[in-house]
Every structure is written in C-alpha cells, then in structure tokens.
C-alpha cells in the first residue's frame, strides 16, 4: 500500500511540475464556467434549473474532452518510461510490477480527479452565487456528474495504460490512444445510430448491452437518464423510461471499464521483457 502511495505521489508531483495538471484544471474550469453562464441566461421562466442545464451541456462536452485528456496523459506512462530508460532502474527496486502500474495509474487518475473536481466545482460555486434557488436534488445530480466524470477519466486513463503496455514504441501507443478515442467517443455512437436507422430490428435488450459496451455511453446514460430533472430537460425522459439500465448497473459498468483494462495492462506488464 505504501509503495503505491509513494509512486502515485511522485506521479502527481511530476504532473504538477509539468503544468499538465494546472493546464487541465484551467481548461476544465474555463469550459465549465462558460457553459454554466450560458446555461443560466435563458432559463429564468422556463422552469428548468440552471444546474440541470449545466449538467446536460457539461456532460455532453465531458464525453469528448475528458477521454482525450486522459488518453493524452496516459499513453506515454509505460512505454515512455521504458523508452527514456527510467523503467529499468525503477524495476530494480523492491517494487512489484503491478504496484508500479497501479501506483502510476492512481497518480494520473488523481490528476484527472483534481482537475475535474476543481474545474467543475468552480462552475458549481458560480451557479450557487448566481442567485437562483437550487434544490438539493439538483446538487446531487451535479455531484453525481462530477463523480462520474472522474470515473470516465479514470476509465480512459486505464485504456491509455493498456495501449502503453501493449506496444514497444511511443508513436504506436499514441496512435492507439487516438484510435481508442475516435472509436469510443465518435464512431461507436454513429455506428449504433446507423444500425438503428437502417431498421435492422435491433431489440431493446441488444441496444442496452451495446450501450454498456462503451464507457462513454454508460456515462452519458448515467447523467442524462439517472436524474428526473435532468432527463426532462435533456429530452431523454422517453429514453430513460425505455432503457432498463439502473444507476448501480451503470456505475458498475464504468468501474468495470476502469478495472478490466488496468488488470489486463498489469498482467501484460508483468510478463513484459524490459
């Protein structure tokens, strides 16, 4: 446990030195604040709270942005250290390989979590100071959005680690990271939509499973259908009624998308010849 924390702490410190953490946090805060200000403008009389508007727009943006940041941060994690020669020395220390991998992952995930919580939290503070009364239900949804965003980031960090462990050079790892982003974030939904539009008679059951097979979709469903106030505004209330995926299931799926790539990466890494 201690070893994990030592490695995670070093990773976190390095990320702050790199200004990676600062840049990411600022980007998240800027986007979140912009969206929350935009969101609070037209709603006064419509009857939808500014928090709900912000959640819908912010979570839609998070799906594109956060996986990209997570992958950019993580694709270099293993292959880069091997390339630079720091890995040989690290592995000669009394550290198990899975500890090294998990420790580094915790550090990177902490960077993402920090950036998300601070960045989106700033938007939350801005909303709270906006003067409109906001109910506890809305705040719960907002907190759930931040929490699930951290999970989404962690899932794509884990995928980045897997890419970084599989290959032998950094260029390939970067290529895989971009491909992962394109597939999960852009192409997957398009393909799904295409299948549905072609009237292939895809059942609800099958659709549910296909949505779970993508962490980004699980995140989207969680945020847009998980809370009544939000789904009403997002226009997904109808969908929410049909999709029989409960909130715990969606969370479990996202946790699975963190644990599985990571376990796979750890298994591959421990067999890797340095």
């Amino acid at each position, binding site marked *: 446990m201690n*070893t994990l924390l*030592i*490695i995670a702490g*070093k990773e976190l*410190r*390095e990320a702050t*030195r*790199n200004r990676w953490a600062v840049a990411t946090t600022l980007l998240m805060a800027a986007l979140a604040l912009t969206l929350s200000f935009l969101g609070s403008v037209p709603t006064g009389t419509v009857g939808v709270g500014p928090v709900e508007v912000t959640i819908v727009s912010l979570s839609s943006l998070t799906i594109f942005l956060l996986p990209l940041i997570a992958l950019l941060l993580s694709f270099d994690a293993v292959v880069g250290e091997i390339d*630079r*020669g*720091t890995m*040989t*020395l*690290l*592995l*000669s*220390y*009394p*550290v*198990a390989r899975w500890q090294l991998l998990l420790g580094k992952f915790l550090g990177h995930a902490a960077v993402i979590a920090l950036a998300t919580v601070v960045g989106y939290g700033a938007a939350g503070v801005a909303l709270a100071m906006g003067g409109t009364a906001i109910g506890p239900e809305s705040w719960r949804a907002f907190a759930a959005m931040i929490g699930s965003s951290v999970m989404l980031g962690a899932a794509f960090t884990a995928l980045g680690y897997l890419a970084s462990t599989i290959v032998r050079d950094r260029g390939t790892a970067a290529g895989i990271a971009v491909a992962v982003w394109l597939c999960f974030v852009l192409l997957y939904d398009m393909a799904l939509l295409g299948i549905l539009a072609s009237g292939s008679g895809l059942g609800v059951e099958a659709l549910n499973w296909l949505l779970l097979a993508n962490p980004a979709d699980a995140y989207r469903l969680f945020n847009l259908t998980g809370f009544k106030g939000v789904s009403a505004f997002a226009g997904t209330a109808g969908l929410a009624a049909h999709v029989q995926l409960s909130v715990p299931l969606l969370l479990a799926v996202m946790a699975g998308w963190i644990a599985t790539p990571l376990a796979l990466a750890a298994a591959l890494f421990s067999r890797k*010849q*340095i």
Partner: protein
Amino acid sequence: MTDFTAEVQGVTKRYGETEAVRGVDLTLAPGECVAMVGHNGAGKSSLIKLMLGLTTPTEGRIRVLGGDPASAACSPIRRQIGFLPENVAFHPNMTGRETLDFYARLKGASRCDNDALFEKVGLEPAAIKRRVSTYSKGMRQRLALAQALLGGPKLLFLDEPTTGLDPALRQSFYAIVAELRDQGTTILLCSHALTELEGQADRVVVMNRGRKVADGSLATLRSLARLPVRIRLTLPTDDIDALAARVGEGAALTRLAGGVVELACANDDKVGLVRRIACESPAANIAIEDIEIVQPSLDEMYAHFLRREAAE
C-alpha cells in the same frame, strides 16, 4: 547454503532468435570486485538484467543473495542490491533531492543518510536543489551512484559507471568502490575502459557474443594469455647490432621512435633477458640510459581472448 553473493549456473537468455547470453556460469563472492569486459552486445547488460530479475533466464538457474531474483518474493533481496544502469535516466522535473528521496522511500532506506550520500558522491548542496534536467552528464552519474548506494547494498551492479566522467571524477569514483569492497560489498563492474580497471578489480570476466571467454585474476589471465612482455630500452647510440647479438633468439627486437628499442619476450624469459643485457660481460657493456618493463595491458589481453575465441 552457499557463501556466494550471486550464483549463475548455465544461464542462457534468448530474445526471439538472438541469444544474448549463452551458457554462462559465474559466481560472485562477498567483498569481491569483479570486472566484466566485452564489446557492446557481448551480453554484459543482459546478464546484469538477469541477475536483477528484470528478465528471466531461458535456461539455467540464478540465485542472488540466497533467492531467485525474479520470484514474487524478491523484495527483501532487491533491498540489498544497488544498481547503476548504463545510460541512466531520471525524471527530469524532479530535483536531485526529490529524486534520491523517492528512491530511498521505495527501497525502505532511511532518508537521513541522503545528505551524507550526496556528500560522498560529491554533489554540491546548490546542485541538489536544482532539477535533474539541468544536470550535466557527470552530475547525473553522481546522482546515479548515490541512488545505487542507498541502504548500504550487499551487492552492487555498476554498468558502464564511468562513461562521461572526467579523470578526477573517475578517481573519486573508484575510491568509493574500493571503500565499499573493503566493507564486504560485492561489486560487479562493467566497462569498456579496460585500462582504468587495472588495480580495481580482483577478478576479470571477459564476455564475447554472450559467452564467457575468460574468468580469473589479472595475473591468471596474463599467464593464460601468454602475451609477450615488452622491455623498452633507451640507448644513447644508434648501434643496436651489439644489443641484437646479446639478446639472441629468445626475443623479437623492434626499433621505436626516440632511440628506444623494444624487446618482446615471454614472461618467463623476462628476468634472464634483463640480466643478459645489463649485467653479464662488463667488457662489452652496452650503454643503456633507461629500462622499462611493460606488462601486457588489459586491453591487449582482452583483444587476445577475443582473437582466440574467433579462431575457435
């Protein structure tokens, strides 16, 4: 069980088609400084990686400090091993102190000793506060040595430790190595710079294309190699015929620059030859200004063993 710090038995390591290490046997005893010499790609670094447990042997058995270095329970073993890798790299955005603190914590070594370590390897307090990315090659190498010495290791692997160091630094480097050896640390040192290993190593292991070609003390290797000893004479005159007659069949005579004549002879004939030249028959004494005996250097012996290996 055994008194050896490390034992390598019949170890072969294959990376796909290529054999990096082939059937190597090697033992390292406590308080021994062993130098491993060989070309790039001779298998030195591969052998060290095997002994560190970074890779596992395709064939054969390795025991380090009484255990298998690649096993899951190797942490207690690794705590007692120091390693200075070839082309050492550190995380560039950490300062020297942070780097050493990080490695000390990983190794479970007390961080109180870090200041003493910095002083030992000669890193200035001002340098410790700077980021590693600003370090020169020599400073990075000192930091690398400092991390290798963390926790007072029983076994020290030094892979090309003196590349990029200036002569003064090399001296202080070898002084540290000698001190550790006297304290009972086993040291395995890889190097290309063979001449600087003379006087440092108790034993020399010659590697070539993954195979161990020779293993023994410098004196043993010298007698094994049977390389000629050279006697250099500085003569006041150009007259070398008298000298040639005196030397006879036993030695080859070459004329070098600056009135120096070099005689090459077998090690056993050396004393007799010097006596013939300098002491016998004073009537026909040959004027000699200076005499110098040159033993075959490690470089020459290394070349000899490689030639022999190639011939086989």
